[in-house]
């Protein structure tokens, strides 16, 4: 018995070896499925683990609020809110940083640390150096990202302007904070560790420096498990309102946490979607190959049954074949998944600053990936195996009856006269196996859609940058003041070196409400027809600022459920905090942020504050950049300066590099899928119709004519796949855009023709490669084999 089983196993190995090319293609597609699964869920696991441990050990707060200024004495009031278990009050102050060797100023945040005790919330992880001593003056802790970006070491000094006074502060410790895993500077659309840093300073020293003795302007709260976060936010808002409190927000709205969470959500979508494509294609390919395998081994199966093998033993035999492929695919996939996952995790360390972020994945992820793959493979095999098991031995040993063809749509429609006989063979074959044609088409189409998706990311980002920087924000630099200033400040800026044009900006934080929909945002007041900082219509044309009412970004309008003409309640969150009722005059397009725009004079009238501005959009002669930056660095009243070209550049550099990797990966994936599908389909066609093709060669058809029949079928599939693939690609893009449609940014659905073109070209090239491999087999068709009665 063992001998027979050995013989069966030997048959299995040899059978596999005979179709090694096809099996290898399947192994690769399978490996991609497992790899993307392990990569995505591994990275999610790693991020989640790092995040949860970090948040937990370093007491990341649950609710946050900023305010203008409140006495520390209100602490008890906050503690009394039901469900609040800890409160930390801080002073957070914006600073301008001057770094030697960098012409443009950087901005930063200076945060107070309690003297003589650890913070109760948002504790710091000390990477190197030491924590601050109580009341230690002249010393700060620096965020690791900023220190690394500038190559600062312990003991180095950082110059910053604090409340109008320039100070050089010594870095005594390098730290990380759970609040700033991901940090964006003011006005930035992408993290820029060189131009934005976070620093911590002794509470008493900072209070003294910024005139906040015994007061605070930032509060964090931890709540009891099970407490209602909405209630706490509301209570907190009521307490802070008299102190200029801005609206409180929970963890899920906290910027850093939001980005981490958003990234994980995206990974989850990818981690489910990509493996589904790969494993679906692998299952289909296995089905095709195994069906063919069973068909060619019909007589063997009959013989084996005749000599006493049971259906179960035979089913197991073929299943083993598939399982071997699964094992190979799993080993390769797990390996590739770990490699890709490690690479991706490494990429995340550029954006996410965790004390430790290492790629790791739970055994469940691996088990699930392999199981998922095995199930899809078995599903693909089952039908084929059932066919094998079903055959009565006597029938199995007889050769298959000639393939049945009948009159197809060609004849019914009378179109046949337009096709050569060779083309008719092609069309009838395509039509005779509608499911195989359908799935092959789908497979090739999916590979194309993966490419459309990858290239779309580039198109979309290019478009976004173009809209943001060439159409909307056409200024070169964006300045913001510490406090609102009279319009005359504009004249001072105009007189600075290299300034060619200046436009005023008046920005005010506000809470917008419509019915029970509400959103914290800001209202930006602009001149009636701005030339630098512009607003764009839905069709992306520059629009004038409406003379009356608000111009709302479409996303904000969507959140508030308002349309043009509706009334909004606007709670201004500054100074006298007036409550206004303003009509929505226009809906405008914006991909980043949630803005509302208004005529500046009108806004100032509403606020009853005279003509004041909070910042300016400036056009600069690039030759004067250096002197201008030098000048601005030394103006204490200017708290923030965004150089748009730099934002654009860093965005493009970092995104470009990562996109490049993603596109390369997708090209490999797509090529593997399309190659796998085309190669397998062509090989199967060759195997099924080898004798027919040999006969045609004997009858005097050339190799080219014979190849035409074989490749004609594949070509039809590819041609059908083009619209299918581009359509699926478009749908994937829409889905992606929808899933990324968040309050912070939207992905414009822009697909360049070249994206479609490249996707088609890559798939066609990988198909040509598989054509070539199959052509070599056509080349070797044994003419004598045509004579044989049966294969």
């Amino acid at each position: 018995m063992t001998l027979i089983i050995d013989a069966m196993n030997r048959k299995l190995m040899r059978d596999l070896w005979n179709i090694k090319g096809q099996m290898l293609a399947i192994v690769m597609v399978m490996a991609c499925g497992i790899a993307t699964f392990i990569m995505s869920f591994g990275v999610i696991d790693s991020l989640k683990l790092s995040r949860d441990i970090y948040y937990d050990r370093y007491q990341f707060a649950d609710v946050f609020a900023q305010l203008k200024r409140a006495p520390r004495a209100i602490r008890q009031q906050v503690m009394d809110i039901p469900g609040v278990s800890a409160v930390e009050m801080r002073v957070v102050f914006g600073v301008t940083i001057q770094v030697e060797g960098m012409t443009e100023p950087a901005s930063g945040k200076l945060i107070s640390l309690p003297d003589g005790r650890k913070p109760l919330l948002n504790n710091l992880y000390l990477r190197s150096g030491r924590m601050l001593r109580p009341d230690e003056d002249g010393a700060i802790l620096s965020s690791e990202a900023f220190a690394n970006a500038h190559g600062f070491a312990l003991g180095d000094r950082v110059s910053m302007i604090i409340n109008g006074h320039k100070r050089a502060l010594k870095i005594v410790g390098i730290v990380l904070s759970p609040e700033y895993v991901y940090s964006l500077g003011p006005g930035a659309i992408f993290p820029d560790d060189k131009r934005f840093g976070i620093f911590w300073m002794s509470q008493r020293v900072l209070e003294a420096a910024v005139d906040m003795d015994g007061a605070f302007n930032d509060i964090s709260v931890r709540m009891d498990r099970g407490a209602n976060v909405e209630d706490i936010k509301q209570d907190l808002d009521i307490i802070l309102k008299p102190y200029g409190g801005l609206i409180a927000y929970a963890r899920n709205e906290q910027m850093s946490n939001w980005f981490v969470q958003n990234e994980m959500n995206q990974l989850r979508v990818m981690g489910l979607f990509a493996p589904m494509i790969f494993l679906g294609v692998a299952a289909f390919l296995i089905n095709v190959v195994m069906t063919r395998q069973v068909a060619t081994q019909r007589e063997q199966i009959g013989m084996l049954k005749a000599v006493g093998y049971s259906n179960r033993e035979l089913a197991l035999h073929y299943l083993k074949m598939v399982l071997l492929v699964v094992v190979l695919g799993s080993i390769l996939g797990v390996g590739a998944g770990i490699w890709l996952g490690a690479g991706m995790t490494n990429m995340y360390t550029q954006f996410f600053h965790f004390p430790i972020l290492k790629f790791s994945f739970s055994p469940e992820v691996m088990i699930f990936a392999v199981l998922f793959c095995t199930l899809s493979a078995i599903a693909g095999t089952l039908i084929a195996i059932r066919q094998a098991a079903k055959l009565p031995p006597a029938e199995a040993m007889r050769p298959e009856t000639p393939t049945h063809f009948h009159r197809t749509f060609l004849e019914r429609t009378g179109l046949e006269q337009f096709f050569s006989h060779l083309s008719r063979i092609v069309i009838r074959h395509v039509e005779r196996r509608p499911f195989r044609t359908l799935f092959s088409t789908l497979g090739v189409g999916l590979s194309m859609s993966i490419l459309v998706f990858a290239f779309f990311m580039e198109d979309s980002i290019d478009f976004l940058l173009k809209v943001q920087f060439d159409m909307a924000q056409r200024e070169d630099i964006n300045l913001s003041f510490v406090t609102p200033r009279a319009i005359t400040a504009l004249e001072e800026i105009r007189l600075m070196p290299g300034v060619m044009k200046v436009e005023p900006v008046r920005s005010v934080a506000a809470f917008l409400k419509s019915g029970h929909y509400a959103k914290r945002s800001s209202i930006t007041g602009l001149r009636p027809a701005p030339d630098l900082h512009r607003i764009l219509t839905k069709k992306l044309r520059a629009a004038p600022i409406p003379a009356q009412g608000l111009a709302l970004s479409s996303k904000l309008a969507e959140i508030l459920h308002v349309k043009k003409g509706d009334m909004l309640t606007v709670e201004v969150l500054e100074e006298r905090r007036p409550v206004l009722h303003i009509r929505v005059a226009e809906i405008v397009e914006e991909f980043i942020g949630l803005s509302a725009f208004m005529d500046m004079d009108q806004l100032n009238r509403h606020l009853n504050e005279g003509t004041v501005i909070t910042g300016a959009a400036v056009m600069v002669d690039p030759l004067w950049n250096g002197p201008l930056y030098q000048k601005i660095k030394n103006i204490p009243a200017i708290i923030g300066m965004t150089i748009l070209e730099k934002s654009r550049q860093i965005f493009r550099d970092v995104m470009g590099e990562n996109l490049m990797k993603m596109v390369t990966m997708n090209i490999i994936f797509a090529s593997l899928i399309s190659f796998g599908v085309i190669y397998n389909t062509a090989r199967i066609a060759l195997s099924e119709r080898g004798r027919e093709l040999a006969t045609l060669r004997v009858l005097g058809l050339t190799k080219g004519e014979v190849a035409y029949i074989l490749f004609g079928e594949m070509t039809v599939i590819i041609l059908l796949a083009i619209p299918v693939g581009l359509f699926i690609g478009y749908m994937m893009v829409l889905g992606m855009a929808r899933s990324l449609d968040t309050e912070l940014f939207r992905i414009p659905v822009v697909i360049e023709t070249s994206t479609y073109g490249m996707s088609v070209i890559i798939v066609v090239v990988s198909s040509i490669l598989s054509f070539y491999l199959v052509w070599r087999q056509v080349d070797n068709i044994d003419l004598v084999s045509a004579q044989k009665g049966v294969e």
Partner: protein
Amino acid sequence: MKAKNITFRTEALTKDYVTGATVAHALRGVTLEIPRGDMVVLLGPSGSGKSTFLNIIGGLDSPTSGEVYFNEDRLSDYTEKQLTLFRRHNVGFVFQAYNLVPSLTAFENVALVTDISLDPMPPAEALTAVGLGGRARHFPSQLSGGEQQRVAIARAIAKRPEVMLCDEPTGALDSETGIVVLKALQKVNKKFGTTTIIITHNAAIAAMADRVIHFGDGRVVDVTVNDHPASPEEISW
């Protein structure tokens, strides 16, 4: 030239099949002449070399040594392309397993070949010649074995080939159907003067040949010339 009346001539034709360490001698020196217009039957046990011989003169295989002449053209010098054209224009093949293209109708199977021929007869005429005028629009799976083989013959004759090479054309058929097929072959041979070479195991078929060549162990054992070929009906199967 005397060659005028010789379609195929072979000189000391040998063919070895090498598989690993063993060499099988399929042909061990065959020198033959096949006159134009003859109906020739190749007889012999399996493995005697008759199929190999047919494959070589049909341009499907090349000899290990020796020469093949087709109308005094050295076939052994032909390139692959030339061999393809030779098969396309000069040879009609009929196989034991019919080898029709299942996805084409009877008519289209014939047309497939006439499309690429220089001076073909209309496919319908070829089908009528084998008595299948009424089955033109049927697919192979809708035809009986004998009908399929007759379509194959129609396909072979439609190009008006100089030679017809038939490997066991009745091997898969019952005697009655076999006779119909043989009649079709004989009719073509007589009507168009096509040199027809038929391989068979069935010695009785030899009675209808002008010439019977007996193969044995890779050699020609005997050649008999039949002055009075029988008609297929007279053959006792």
